């Protein structure tokens, strides 16, 4: 098998994996702090993808510029979703939380179907079909831009949690819920803030993903599942783990497609998931509870 083919496929896997990682990062952040698994995660990304399509169709707004309004809108949406709908469920059993968020997901999918219909949509920017050539290695421009943006967003998120006061307060909440309350932190607000940040993350991922795949309303559940696989492989609640998991899944799918058969791509990512659950249940970068 030609070495350039392997390089091309691995590079595409890494670049796509970074966008997957950003998507999963939102899920991981929300779970790490609020301890609620967002079963509407993929559906939220699908809404962000549609928002990007609409912004592009209406004002020719490039998806990379659409990131700003989309992230802001999703931050506000996530904040209010958590503070009004999800917060009352925080202390309830997990199956109640599960049913609530599955219901939200179903409403989102059907809402999109009612508004946009079942047809696939995309944005067509001029660089989308272009690529750089380095010898026999090709770099898909849109994929490179998307991966760089995903890395920049992740870095900004890391910096926020590491250095800013609200970020530190959120981490304190995640580490010790009772302790955070005792020192007077507004936990309810911080939970909503976290959900807003996670939603903004998924909005950015949606803006980038629309450059790589066409969007349909039924895309959501597949991405919710993918995000779960990534965060479980990387470590639920670990931000670095989400990025690592994204890259691992992206590369493993690509390599499996090359060496086994393209139809077996998902099979390999699930096999990886089973291996991680068997030998390192907390995930590659997760902490033991």
């Amino acid at each position, binding site marked *: *098998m030609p070495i350039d*083919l392997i390089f091309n496929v691995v590079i595409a896997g890494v670049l796509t994996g970074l966008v997957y990682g950003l998507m999963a990062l939102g899920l991981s952040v929300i779970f790490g702090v609020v301890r609620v698994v967002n079963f509407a995660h993929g559906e939220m990304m699908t809404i962000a993808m549609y928002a990007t399509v609409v912004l592009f169709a209406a004002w020719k707004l490039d998806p990379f510029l659409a990131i700003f309004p989309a992230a802001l809108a999703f931050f506000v949406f996530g904040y209010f979703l958590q503070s009004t709908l999800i917060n009352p469920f925080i202390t309830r059993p997990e199956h109640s939380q599960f049913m609530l968020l599955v219901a939200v997901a179903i409403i989102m999918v059907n809402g999109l179907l009612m508004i946009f219909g*079942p047809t696939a949509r*995309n944005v067509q920017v001029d660089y989308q079909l272009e690529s750089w050539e380095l010898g026999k290695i090709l770099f*898909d421009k849109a994929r490179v831009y998307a991966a760089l943006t995903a890395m920049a967003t992740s870095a900004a998120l890391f910096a926020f949690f590491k250095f800013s006061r609200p970020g530190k307060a959120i981490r304190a909440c995640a580490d010790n819920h009772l302790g955070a309350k005792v020192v007077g932190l507004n936990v309810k607000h911080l939970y909503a803030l976290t959900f807003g940040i996670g939603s903004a993350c998924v909005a950015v991922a949606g803006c980038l993903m629309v450059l790589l*795949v066409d969007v*349909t309303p039924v*895309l959501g559940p597949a991405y919710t599942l993918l995000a779960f696989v990534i965060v479980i492989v990387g470590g639920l609640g670990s931000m670095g783990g989400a990025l690592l998991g994204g890259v691992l899944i992206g590369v493993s799918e690509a390599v499996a497609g090359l060496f086994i058969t393209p139809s077996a*791509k998902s099979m390999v990512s699930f096999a990886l998931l089973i291996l991680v659950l068997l030998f390192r249940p907390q995930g590659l970068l997760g902490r033991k509870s």
Partner: protein
Amino acid sequence: MDRRQFNKTLAAAGTLASLSPFGIVRAQGAKLKVGVLLPRSGTQAFIGQSCQFGADIAPAVIKQMMGVDIELMNADTETNVDTARSRAERLISEGAQVLVGPFDSGAAGAIAQVAEQKGVPFVINIAAAPQITEQGYKYTFRNFPTAVDLVRNGLALIGDLFQATSTVPRTAVFMHVNDTFGQAMAKGVGGLMPRLTQLPFKIVDTISYDPAAKDLTVEVAKAKATGADFLLLVCRLNDAIILRREMVKQRWNPMGIIGPGNPGMYENQFYSALGKLSEHCISNVPWYNPKAELTKLIEAQMIKQFPKEKLMFHALNVGFTFESIMIAADAYKRARTSNSKELTEAIRQTDIKNRMMIGGPIKFNAKGQVEGIGSAAIQNLNQRPTVVLPVAAAEAKPVFPVPGYVKKS
């Protein structure tokens, strides 16, 4: 009203009442309830919606042609075999007297089982897996070629194409979707290729992929690496669009892309999504006769009901869907009843010569299969499907190799 008149009226009412529980309604004056099953959402949504045009115009055209009233009962299979099965059951329970559809071999197999269990005739519009009419089903009929026939016709046209353009490609890479249709087509290609010694090329690699794939980077990279002269492609619509874009991204310019009997590359959405990138793709598929009287009727109705749509972009889907409803209406007219056994028997005796699609009369063999449906080579020229072969029906000369092809040293 005197006593005798009263008794006559009572007797007539009694006869009607005794017949109605068995669902027996004499034809003239009553509507034939046709359950139309199509994938109007999901990955095959565009094609399903395209087929739906054929169903939607059918009642008006059939009323005009045959004087038969049709009531459509539409159901969305959501590009899902299980949904197709449950929708078929529901349509029958709601009173559908004949089922039509479903543009998918997997769904057709499931619906055929339901039709058989419930004893309701089922006329397939588009589905090519050979096994559907090899099960000994009594209520299933198909007015569409089997995958083997599609591939046989498609490969023969590839030979004609090379002759017409004086080209001799030596290698092809074969990519196909891995659903029921794709696998049946792959089986057909695998079975027929060794016997077609007149074809100058050999298949150097076969790559299957998921029709719902969102990304075909690896598949295209693998195909490009084979260095094959041209791409033999069995696709659907969405994947065809993704694949074509990916070919451009990866700067892969083979001599051409040829579909040996599959949808995807002549669909309206393929042109609108890809624009100039849709040019020169070739599909060897059953096609319509633009000069047929029925085509003109259908085109006029299409303009009336859907002024924004052009028949040429939906021709195959509209043509076969319309014809399947016409088969049911014709049988209903002859049987003069919606009783399923009599209606099924009337469908079996079908002999329709006035049709839209190219081919002989619509006549079912003992297995419920129409034979002798031919194919034409359709090339995308100026962003519209153009017949380039056979020469007798050609609207333009075929372009092969396609522009942009770089001959390897």
